[in-house]
C-alpha cells in the first residue's frame, strides 16, 4: 500500500470477501506489505539502543523509514500517527528518511506504533549503518536501471525518428512510415512504462497535496506527448513525437541520478555517528575475567576495559588513575585531554593511552553521543524549506498552458474543427515546459559535476543559490581553520643559553615520544638529533625527564620542570618549560597549525565584502591568537553547540544569510541551523548529512572556487529561464493561431531544450584554481626566537 487511498481500497476488497485476490496474485513484491512482527522492538535489550526515556515518563525513538520520499509522505505519516492514542509527538524528516516519535509507554508500545506505520506501507528500520547502506544501494540500482532503459530507448527512438524525418522530405510510402512509427512506439513504451513512473508518481503526490511542483509539468509533458503520438500513429496522422518523449525522460533522469549520487556519496551524519560507537566491549565479569560482549548488553554499573586507541563504548566514570582521551570529534577540543580517576568519559571518544578501566554510567540512547545525534536530527527537521522560483513559475506556467490549449481547442472547434487537434497539439508541444523544467536541473547538474571535480560535493542543490547569497561566513576553528595538530610558535630563552641550543636539548629529551608536543618540537629542529639523552622517563600528564652529558633536564609543565631545581615557576600554563638544576632555561609556546589555504580563503572572502567570524568551543586565548593571525576581527570562544546555534539564529534574525563551515560531530546540529552548511570532509567525515556542501578534498580554498562557480551557475540558470520564457511567449501565440504545424513545434521544442542544455554546459571550472599556499606556514619562519 502506498497511501491512504490504496489502504481504503484494500479494506474495501477485504470487506467484500475478496481477499483471495491477494492469494491468487503472483507478484508478491507488489502486495500490500505483510505487516511484520515488530514485537522484538519492545524487548528491553533493543529499546535500550534506540529508545530514550524522558523525565515525564514518555519515550522517544528515532527510526529510519523506507519509502519516505517527499512532503506528502511526511504529511501522511504525521497525520496517521498523531491520532494514535498515546503518541505525543511525531516528527518526520524526509531528506534523511527519519521519523522521530514520542509516546507514553503505558498506553501504547513501540511495536504497535511501528505496525501502524508499516500498514501505511512505510517499513521502519532501526537506525544502523547496514540498514542505510542496503537502502541506498537499492535506490541506486533502481535509478541506474531506469536511466539505462531510458537512454537505450531514447537512442532507438531517435534513430527511427531520423528515418521518419528523412522520409518526410524524401517521400516515404505510408506503410513504411507507419512501420517506423509502430517500432518507435515499441521502443518508447518501456521508457514510459519503466523509467517515467517516477515522474507520474511524483506528479500524483503533488496533485494530492494540491501543490504544483516540477514533477507535474514533466509528467504532463511526457504523458501528453506520448498519448498524442499513439493517437497519431493509430489514425495515421501527420507527426509523432516518440523521440521527444524518451529524450525528455532520459535527460531528466540523468539529472536526478547525479543528484542522488552526490547525496549518497556524502555520508549520513547519524549513521556516521552511530559508527563512532564501537559494537563490542570488553566487560570484566564478576569472576574477574574479561568477556567480549555487544555494547547493547552493557548494563549500568558494569566495568569495561578499553585498550589504547579504541573508542569508548559507553558514558562512564574512569577507574584507572589517569588517561589521555581524544574528544576532538565530540567537543571540538583540539588536544587530547587528561582525565583522572573519577572523571567522566564520553562514548565515542578515543582512549589515547591504556588499557583503562571504566565503570559504565549511561548506555545506548542515554549517552552524550546519542543526544548529539538526536539534536542533529531535530535541527534538520526545523530547517526552513525554500521553494525554488523556477519551480513555482513552471507550475503557474503549466496551469496557464493547460487553460490556453483548452481555449485553442474550443476556438478552433468553432472556426475549423479539422484543424483543432493539430493546433491544440502544437500549443501543447511547442509550449512543452521542457525548457522551463530543464533550465534549473541542467544548470545545477552541470555545476555539481564540475564542482565534484574540484572536490566539492553539493548535497542539496538549493545550497548553491544560498552560497551566493550568503553574506556572513562563520567558521569553526579546530579542524576547519586549523589542522588537528600543533606546531612550535616561539622559543623564549630564560637563561644565557640560546634558543637554538634549548630547542636542541628539548628535541633530544623528546626523541622517543609520540606526544603532540614532542612531535612539534622534533619537527621544528629539523637536524637529526643524536641519541645523547639517557635515563629518559615519561611522567604522564607532566612531562619528560632525562640526562644529557651528565646533566639532568626536565621538559614539561612549568611546575614539573622547575621542581628539578626548586626554582620558581614561570607563569603561563599552556607553555612547556625546559629546566635543569639551575632553573628554567627556556619556554616553548605552541600554536595550532593553520590550514595552508585558510589565509587566502579568508582574504578572498573579505575582498568579497562578506562578514567572517569564528565560533569555537576552544579556549579564548587560542581562538584570539588564531583570529589575530588570520586577520579576523570577530570571534567567540567557549561556545557549546547550543550557544553556536543561538548565535547563528541571532545573525539570521539580523538579516544575514549565514554560511557555516565546520568539521566534527559537535558541529552537526550547528551546521543544520545555518542557511548553508559546509563541511570539510578530510578529517572526521562526519558532519556530512547536515551539510549542504562538502569540501571533500580537505581544501578550504575550494570554497572560493565553489562560490565563483555557484555565481556563474545562477547567472546561466537565469539566462535559461529568460530564454525559455522568451521562446514560449513568442511561439505559443503562433501555434495557437495554427501557423505552426506539430512537427515544426516538435523541432522548436527540441531546439529550445538543446539551447538550455548547451547553455548549461558553459559552466566550467574556473581557469585558475586558487590554491595559493600561505607563506606563514613555513615552519622555519614560524619559530621566532624572542629575546628574554
Amino acid at each position, binding site marked *: 500500500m502506498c497511501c491512504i487511498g490504496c489502504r481504503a481500497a484494500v479494506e474495501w476488497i477485504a470487506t467484500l470477501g475478496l481477499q483471495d485476490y491477494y492469494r491468487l496474485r503472483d507478484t508478491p513484491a507488489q502486495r500490500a506489505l505483510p505487516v511484520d512482527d515488530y514485537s522484538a522492538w519492545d524487548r528491553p535489550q533493543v529499546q535500550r539502543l534506540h529508545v530514550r526515556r524522558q523525565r515525564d515518563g514518555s519515550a522517544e525513538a528515532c527510526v529510519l523509514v523506507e519509502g519516505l520520499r517527499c512532503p506528502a509522505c511526511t504529511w501522511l505519516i504525521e497525520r496517521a500517527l498523531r491520532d494514535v492514542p498515546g503518541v505525543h509527538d511525531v516528527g518526520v524528516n524526509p531528506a534523511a528518511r527519519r521519523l522521530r516519535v514520542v509516546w507514553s509507554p503505558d498506553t501504547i508500545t513501540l511495536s504497535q506504533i511501528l505496525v501502524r506505520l508499516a500498514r501505511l506501507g512505510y517499513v521502519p528500520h532501526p537506525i544502523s549503518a547496514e540498514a542505510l547502506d542496503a537502502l541506498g544501494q537499492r535506490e541506486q540500482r533502481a535509478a541506474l*536501471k531506469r536511466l*539505462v532503459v531510458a537512454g537505450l530507448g531514447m537512442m*532507438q527512438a531517435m534513430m527511427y525518428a531520423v528515418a521518419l524525418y528523412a522520409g518526410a522530405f524524401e517521400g516515404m510510402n505510408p506503410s513504411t512510415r507507419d512501420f517506423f512509427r509502430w517500432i518507435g512506439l*515499441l521502443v518508447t513504451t518501456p521508457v514510459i512504462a519503466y523509467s517515467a513512473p517516477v515522474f507520474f508518481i511524483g506528479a500524483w503526490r503533488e496533485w494530492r497535496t494540491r501543490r504544483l511542483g516540477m514533477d507535474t509539468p514533466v509528467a504532463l509533458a511526457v504523458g501528453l506527448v506520448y498519448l498524442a503520438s499513439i493517437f497519431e500513429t493509430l489514425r495515421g496522422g501527420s507527426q509523432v513525437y516518440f523521440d521527444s518523449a524518451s529524450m525528455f525522460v532520459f535527460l531528466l533522469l540523468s539529472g536526478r541520478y547525479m543528484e542522488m549520487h552526490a547525496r549518497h556519496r556524502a555520508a549520513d551524519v547519524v549513521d556516521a555517528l552511530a559508527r563512532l560507537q*564501537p559494537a563490542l566491549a570488553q566487560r570484566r565479569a564478576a569472576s574477574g575475567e574479561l568477556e567480549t560482549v555487544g555494547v547493547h548488553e552493557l548494563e549500568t554499573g558494569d566495568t569495561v576495559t578499553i585498550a589504547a586507541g*579504541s*573508542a569508548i563504548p559507553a558514558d562512564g566514570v574512569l577507574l584507572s588513575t589517569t588517561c589521555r582521551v581524544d574528544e576532538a570529534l565530540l567537543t571540538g577540543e583540539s588536544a587530547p585531554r587528561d582525565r583522572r580517576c573519577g572523571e567522566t568519559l564520553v562514548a565515542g571518544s578515543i582512549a589515547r593511552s591504556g588499557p583503562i578501566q571504566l565503570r559504565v554510567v549511561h548506555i545506548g540512547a542515554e549517552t552524550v553521543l546519542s543526544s548529539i545525534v538526536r539534536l542533529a536530527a531535530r535541527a534538520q527537521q526545523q530547517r526552513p524549506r525554500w521553494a525554488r522560483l523556477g519551480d513555482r513559475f513552471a507550475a503557474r506556467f503549466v496551469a496557464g498552458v493547460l487553460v490556453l490549449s483548452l481555449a485553442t481547442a474550443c476556438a478552433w472547434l468553432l472556426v475549423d474543427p479539422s484543424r483543432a487537434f493539430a493546433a491544440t497539439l502544437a500549443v501543447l508541444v511547442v509550449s512543452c515546459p521542457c525548457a522551463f523544467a530543464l533550465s534549473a536541473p541542467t544548470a545545477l547538474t552541470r555545476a555539481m559535476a564540475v564542482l565534484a571535480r574540484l572536490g566539492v560535493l553539493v548535497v542539496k542543490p538549493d545550497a548553491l543559490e544560498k552560497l551566493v547569497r550568503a553574506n556572513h561566513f562563520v567558521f569553526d576553528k579546530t579542524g576547519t581553520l586549523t589542522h588537528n595538530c600543533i606546531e612550535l610558535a616561539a622559543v623564549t630563552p630564560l637563561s644565557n643559553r640560546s634558543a637554538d641550543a634549548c630547542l636542541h636539548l628539548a628535541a633530544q629529551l623528546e626523541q622517543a615520544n609520540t606526544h603532540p608536543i614532542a612531535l612539534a618540537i622534533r619537527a621544528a629542529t629539523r637536524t637529526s638529533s643524536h641519541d645523547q639523552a639517557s635515563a629518559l622517563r615519561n611522567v604522564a600528564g607532566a612531562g619528560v625527564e632525562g640526562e644529557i652529558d651528565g646533566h639532568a633536564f626536565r621538559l614539561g609543565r612549568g611546575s614539573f620542570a622547575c621542581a628539578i631545581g626548586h626554582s620558581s615557576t614561570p607563569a603561563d600554563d599552556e607553555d612547556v618549560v625546559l629546566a635543569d638544576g639551575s632553573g628554567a632555561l627556556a619556554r616553548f609556546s605552541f600554536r595550532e597549525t593553520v590550514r595552508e589555504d585558510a589565509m587566502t580563503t579568508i582574504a578572498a572572502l573579505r575582498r568579497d565584502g562578506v562578514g567572517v567570524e569564528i565560533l569555537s568551543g576552544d579556549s579564548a586565548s587560542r581562538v584570539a591568537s588564531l583570529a589575530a593571525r588570520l586577520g579576523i576581527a570577530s570571534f567567540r570562544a567557549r561556545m557549546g553547540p547550543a550557544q553556536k546555534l543561538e548565535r547563528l539564529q541571532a545573525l539570521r534574525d539580523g538579516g544575514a544569510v549565514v554560511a557555516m563551515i565546520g568539521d566534527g560531530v559537535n558541529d552537526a546540529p550547528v551546521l543544520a541551523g545555518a542557511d548553508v552548511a559546509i563541511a570539510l570532509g578530510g578529517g572526521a567525515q562526519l558532519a556530512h548529512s547536515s551539510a549542504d556542501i562538502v569540501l571533500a578534498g580537505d581544501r578550504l580554498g575550494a570554497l572560493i572556487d565553489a562560490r565563483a562557480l555557484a555565481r556563474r551557475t545562477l547567472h546561466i540558470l537565469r539566462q535559461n529561464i529568460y530564454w525559455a520564457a522568451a521562446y514560449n511567449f513568442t511561439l505559443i501565440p503562433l501555434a495557437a493561431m495554427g501557423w505552426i504545424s506539430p512537427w515544426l513545434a516538435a523541432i522548436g521544442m527540441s531546439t529550445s531544450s538543446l539551447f538550455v542544455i548547451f547553455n548549461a554546459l558553459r559552466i566550467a571550472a574556473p581557469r585558475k584554481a586558487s590554491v595559493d599556499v600561505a607563506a606563514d606556514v613555513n615552519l622555519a619562519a614560524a619559530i621566532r626566537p624572542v629575546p628574554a
Partner: protein
Amino acid sequence: MNIILVLIPISLVLLVAGVWAFFWGVNNSQFDDLQTPALMPLSDDPPPVRKSGDSAGSE
C-alpha cells in the same frame, strides 16, 4: 528496402539482450562501486579482510 524488415527486428532483439545483460549486471553488484575495482590492480597487497566483529569506531 525490405532488408529493414529483417534488420530492425534483429536490432530490437539485440536491444533486449543488452538491457537484460545490464539488468543482470546491476542485480549482481557489478555497478555498485565503479571506483574501487579500477584501482585494485594497482595495490600490491590484498586488502585486509574485515572481520564482522571489528566494525565500528576503531578507525
